[in-house]
Structures are given as structure tokens and as C-alpha cells.
């Protein structure tokens, strides 16, 4: 199932399939969010936004609106 990154629940993982084109997509990619990478939702800020994801071996904080630009294939486990 392909969903946007902001729709992941805490602890869920997905593999990046594509990014909505634009300046932001380029920024995400150079931060290591390239297609094929696995991302895990690590934590959600107390007020529900921003979120922190584990990607490429580190923790990245991004806002939900930004996360919505990243499409991931949900990994079914756990």
C-alpha cells in the first residue's frame, strides 16, 4: 500500500517510492530521503506536529506538510 509519509503511525516503516517534485523534494533527497530508502516513524511531537523519522541511519525532523510530499510503500510487519 502506498501512502504519504505523514500517514505512518508511530513505529511503522515504509520504503520511499517517490517524491512530489519541487524544491523541497531536492532538499529531502540530499538529506538522504532517496527512492528505495527505508523510513521509520520514530516519534511525533507532543502537539502532533512536527514528526521525527529514522532514515539513512539518523533522525530527521520534518513538518507534516513536508512529509506529505514523500510517498512510501508501507512495510507490513509487527
Amino acid at each position, binding site marked *: 500500500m502506498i501512502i504519504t509519509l505523514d500517514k505512518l503511525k508511530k513505529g511503522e516503516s515504509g520504503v520511499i517510492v517517490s517524491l512530489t517534485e519541487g524544491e523541497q523534494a531536492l532538499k529531502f533527497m540530499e538529506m538522504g530521503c532517496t527512492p528505495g530508502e527505508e523510513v521509520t516513524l520514530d516519534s511525533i511531537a507532543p502537539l502532533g506536529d512536527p514528526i521525527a523519522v529514522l532514515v539513512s541511519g539518523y533522525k530527521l525532523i*520534518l513538518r507534516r506538510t513536508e512529509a506529505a510530499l514523500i510517498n512510501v510503500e508501507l512495510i507490513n510487519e509487527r
Partner: protein
Amino acid sequence: MRKNSIISSRTFKVALLGNPNSGKSTLFNALTGMNQHTGNYPGVTVEKISGGFVLQDGLNEAPLLVNLLDLPGTYSLYPKTLDEEVCYNVLCDDDNPDCPDAAIIVADATNLRRNLFLASQIIDIGIPSIFVLNMIDFASAKGLSIDEDKLSHLLGVPVVSTNARRKTGIDALKKILATELKRSEKTLLNVKEFINPYLIDEVKKIYPKKTDYGVYQAINNQAGISHFEAPSEKAAELKRLIKEYGYDKHKAQTSMTIERYKIITEIVKECVSVNEEQKRKSFSARIDKALTHRVWGYFIFLLILFLIFQSIFFIAPYPMKAIEFLFVKISELGRIYLPSGELSSLLINGILAGLSGVVVFVPQIALLFAFIAILEDTGYMARVSFLMDRLMRPVGLNGRSVIPLMSGVACAVPAILGTRVIPGRKERLITILVTPFMSCSARLPVYTLLISLVIPAKLALGYFNMQGLVLMGLYLLGFIAAISVAALLKFLIRVKEKSYFVMEMPLYHLPKLSVVGLSVYQKVKVFLLEAGKIIVIISIILWFMASHGMPGAFSRIDKNFANGDTVKKYTPAQLNNLISGEKLKASFAGDAGRLLEPVIKPLGFNWKIGIALITSFAAREVFVGTMATLYSADNEDNTMSIRQKMAAAADPLTGKKIYTAAAGISLMLFYAFAMQCMSTLAVVYHETKKLKYPVLQFVFMGALAWLASFAAYQLLK
């Protein structure tokens, strides 16, 4: 210029670069020690930090002097922020005086993949480089082991592991720097697969020294927008070629980013092995459970804020009093030993007073920056952003605005210097512009005096002290004003630079004393040298206005008070007070006050208040001293005396009291909103590098103050 063998020259320029949080500053300190310089890159507000050290390699008899430039942390060579653009310009523009002969690329060893992105770009543009695996101890703790030899072979540059915090690996790094540096033989990415090879070849004719990838970077940057537009013949030719070949910047960048990461992923696969057993839940993850908790997270943050306030409010006054005391003693000595006259007065009341006004800020700045540096260095600042972002976003600020904004309650000067931790340009600008609304400690003496004058010390609602409530209301008003103006500016300010919130949440580290100490030292130095200049100049102007009048005005006053009857009526001290009061009224500042009167009359202020508004420019609390002089109070420090005189003050024509509740409240509102602090204006200018921002701030806040005071006075009188 870059050469294949660089050891021939006696001094050489090395750039230190890497991702943010890669331990770059710690490595910089380990290499250069105290031999550092700070400044600014010409025309922009990006801090330029450089340092030097000497290499003795044994092979070359002559010692080699290394000039190390600490570039701002960046994730790629595609500039999006001012910091990144400075980095790009230094590395890619051969005409830049800072263009290095070699580069030390620092990488966080726990996070090789992302760090290799920038590193491989640097290697591809053909700068002789060393790849440093920093924080190697953290990598081991995570169960990662990296094959340095293989990595060096695949990248084509020497690789060295360091732990900059423990200073291990530094000697090895220096040794490589002295002996093995050369331009990489290979490029990782073949640019011609992605961009029309003819375009590359054509552009290469303009920049013959660049590698294919260097040429691509030149094309890529020219196709975009730049803060440092330098129209030259080369640039014009480049623009023409880009147009002719129909170069698509976005497409090229996307495909090359994806390809580069593919290559990097392969390299990482070959060089890094993970020991799953050691991959236990890290220390950082456990701390984060508490520090970003939805209850404890905020509680701990408030506690830290409270601690910062307490120390700025209660610790800083001691050294500040000592500094003031010292300056008072020096000027007393000056008064005794210098011949009285114009020059001495300028020296003591103008320059020395100005210097005192500058130096007195140092304790607050040092304390605030010590805290900010600790929060940054430990990695906690990123957590603050994570916690606070959602709250600050609606008013155009982001999570990192919180600490500078809140420290404005102590003093706007260190607070505005502290806005450099805010990533987006727009957010930073808004924070700078609204921070002066926060009720700073210099407003407190003004409020205390006026509250005691016009607000009865009665209980409101049976429990609350009215005076205390008004004071709290004024603080709240400052905060509300700051937030509302921020919300307004969010729509008004347009910046070229797009702001991203995306940021890394680094691992926790223990703060390092050398990093904290140097940050404090650099900030204090920049403040003293840069903002200090402007403050001293304005002080001298203020001194001139208050101590000089129209020709003959002062000598008439001296003559009037010199007759025998007057002298007998008063004690010498009283006489002195009377004379200085009369002189201030007759000075240029007095004239300016009278000139101001028509403008401030609707607010319930007379020309004497006008004088105080002008002298307050040195610092708001000067209001109290000016009032004391104007009303010839017996003792400046005696608030009771000033209060009584002010309370009795009446209009000579109508006999009505001047300091009514309406006028008092109007005056407090004026002090709450108006931009009356030259030090803040000087710092705003220094931090924005544009005159329009302090001017706008002055005009806007002044207008707001006028309107608020006008409304209050007209409604209440």
C-alpha cells in the same frame, strides 16, 4: 590556484567543511587551539571563522603554515540558504580570495551515507581533500565498523578516523595534510551522462581549470538565483550558453542526486559492517523519551528557560554593577586629575559613558551565549524546535525562536545576537524585529517609578496588589505585542530564500568547554567591536546635546546663580543640582524636547518628558536619572525624592497636575512600545546588515507607541 602538488608553497589555505552536527567546530578547535579569528564574509551576516596552525612534517625542512577556514555546516553543494551559499562560493569560485588549496571534509561516522553526499561532491569538483571520520567512538558504540582503506580507495582521497572531543587522530590528520594531499584521480559521478556533453565542453572553455563536475556546478548555480550576483564577462557567456543548450536545472539536479546516492549506497555497503548485537537501544533514544515527552518535555524546557532567566536577571547584575562601579571610579579620577574643560567633558561624559554603556552588556551576553552554546552543543536545541515548532508556527516563527525571544525579557541586545541559531532567514528576521517588544530589564526602573507615582498601592479584587498587577500587565503587553507583530510580519516580509524546517535531530553529547568558551568569546568580541562602535558614537552625540546649548545660554545660568542671595539660600549640593537642571533645560536636548512638545502634547507629555525621551536613547533607565536632574532632585538614587517632585509638578499656566494617572499610563505605554534603545538598533543593524531594518523598527514602534499613548491618554484624562 589549485595545483597537483601544493606542498611547494609555504602557507596554504585549507577549508574545513562538513554536515551540521558532524563535530566540525570541535575538530577546528582541536586543530587551531586559541589561534582563531572571527569576522563576517563581506556583505552578508554569515560569521567567518578562521584559524592557523603550523605543520612540521620532517620531509620538508620549512614549516608549513596552514590557514584553516571553518565553513558553515552544509548538507550539499546546492546552496539554498545564505550559509550554504557562502560555502558554495568559497569552494567553487576560483576568484574568491578564500578559495582553498585543500579541504578537510568532516563526516559523522555514525551516519556515513548522508555525510558522503557532500563529501563526494567536494571530491568531484577537484579540491585535494582528506576525508575525516569523526565521532568514531559513537560509531563503534552503535556497532558500526568502517574499513578505512577500502573507503579511501573507493573515494580516491586519504581517510582518517578521529575523535575530536578526545583529540585522538589529530596527529594522523596533520601528517596526511603535510604529505599525502593530492587531487583525486577519479570522479565518482560522470556528469556527461546527465548533461549535454557539448554544453560541458563549451563551458569548460570559460573555466579551463574546473573538472567536469566543477563545470556542472558553475552551470547549475548560474541557472538559479544568487545573493552574490557578480556580473562578469564569464558569467554573461555562461548565461548565454545555458540558454542556448536549454539546460533544465531541476531535472539535472534530481537525476544526479539520485544517481549519487546510488553510488554512495554501494560504497557504504562495501565499507561498513554492522554488528547487530551491539546495536542496542542507544543512550540518546532513552534521553529523548523524557526530553520530548508531552508533559515532561515541556516541563524540562520551562525549567531550563527559568534557569536562563534567573541567571541573566540575578547573576548578571553583580558583574554589571562592578563594571559600572569601575567606570564611575575612572570618571571620578578623571574629574579630579584632568583639567576641567570641553575635552575632559567629552572624554568623561561622552566617550567613557558610552564605553561603559557598551561593556555593561558583556555579562548578559556572555551568560546567554554560554547557555545557547551548551544547548546547541548537547543537541538539545533541536529538541526545543521539535517541541515548540507547532506553537510558534502560526505567528511566522519557528521552534528555535523561543529562546532568543524569551531572553528579550532580560535584554534585547544578547537576544538579537542569539537569533543566529534560527535557521530560516524569514523566521530569523521576524524574531529580530519583534524581540524589542519584550519588556526588557531597562524598562523596569521606568515602570517602577511611574507605577509608584500614579497607581495606588491598593488591593484589587481583595487579594492582588494593584501596582503588581499593572507591572505584570506591562510584561504581558510586551509579549502580546511581540507575538501580534510577528503574525503581521509573517504576511509582510518576503525573502528570496525558501525556508525549510527539515532538520537533523543529532545524538546527545556532553557539552565541550572549549566550544562553549569560544562561542562566548566570539560573540562578546563581535558585540564589543561592531555594535560598540555605533553605541559610542551615539553616546557622544547625546552627550553633546545634553551638555551644550545655544551660545550664551549656559553662561547666563551660571551668572544668575552666582549672585550672593541665591548662593546663601541653598547648600552647595542643592545649588549644583539646580544649576544642572537649568542647564539641561537650556541645552540642545532641551530645545529638542520643546521641539517635540507639539507632537507629544496629545499624549499628555510636556517638553521635560520630551527631554527624557531623547536621553532615554542611551538606555531606557536613563529616564529616571534625567527626571532627577530636571526636577533637581536632591539625590539621584533617591526615588522618593524624584517621586515627590514629580507628583507635585504642575503646569505653570493652568496649575493642573502633570503626572496624572492618564499621563502616567500613557507614558508607560510609550515605554512599552517605543524603540528607544540605541544599543538594540546598533545590534539590529549589525545582524541584518541593512539600515532599513533598524529604521523601520524605529519608525514602526514609535508610531505604535504614539497611537497607544494617544488612545490611553485621551480616553483616561
